[in-house]
């Protein structure tokens, strides 16, 4: 199973885990990213590049399934304006093997951050501000190359 979604609506992490578990797995790993209220941030707006985004996420899923023995991969990314505490992104993997599920899950979220065309704008106390990339994100993605 490869499940890729780019959507403004929220998703249900429990339902996503159920779908992954159904894929004859012994191990399911997941990562959920949530809007943090650091530095007075009240909300984020997520912009993306329609068409390219779906392709980039499908390429990442494919890369993970080539590298690890996975029975299922799910990537869901929300777009639009999301308040503090809202879910932004979900990455889930299913495998017969625990290490494969865990490593592929980390790979997917690390690489998504550098390879998928999304841009975040913060709204908060300090006004509106486009988020800049962090060197730690590039380093996290690089360890998979």
């Amino acid at each position, binding site marked *: 199973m490869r499940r890729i979604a780019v959507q403004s609506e929220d998703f249900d992490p429990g339902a996503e885990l159920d779908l992954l578990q159904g894929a004859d797995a012994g191990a399911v790993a997941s990562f959920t990213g949530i809007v943090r209220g650091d530095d007075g941030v009240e909300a984020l707006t997520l912009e993306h590049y329609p068409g390219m985004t779906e392709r980039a996420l499908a390429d990442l899923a494919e890369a993970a399934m080539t590298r690890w023995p996975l029975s299922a991969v799910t990537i869901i990314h929300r777009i639009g304006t999301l308040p503090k505490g809202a879910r932004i992104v979900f990455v889930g993997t299913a495998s017969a093997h625990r290490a494969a599920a865990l490593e592929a899950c980390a790979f997917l979220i690390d690489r998504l951050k550098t390879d998928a065309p999304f841009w975040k704008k913060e709204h908060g106390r300090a006004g509106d501000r*486009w988020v800049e990339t962090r060197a730690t994100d590039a380093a996290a993605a690089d360890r998979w190359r």
Partner: protein
Amino acid sequence: MPLDILYFAWVREHVGLSSERAELPADASTPLKVAQWLAARGGGYATAFAAPEKLRCALDQQVVAMTDPIGEAREIAFFPPVTGG
């Protein structure tokens, strides 16, 4: 042949457009040269393209280097480094 030029994030905000269709000048053979040509329009374009090293580019939805050839691409996109996830 006309090309679709797409702008995202603060590039889009400075330019004031999400996309436009344009005929490139004959010598605009790389994303960097297109960026310089757009910067020369002045105004928001000049601001958006003042520092091409801060920009990333995709040709037909594949990320490329700013000095790669544009070739037969039908769509070029300029944007800042991505910040999703």
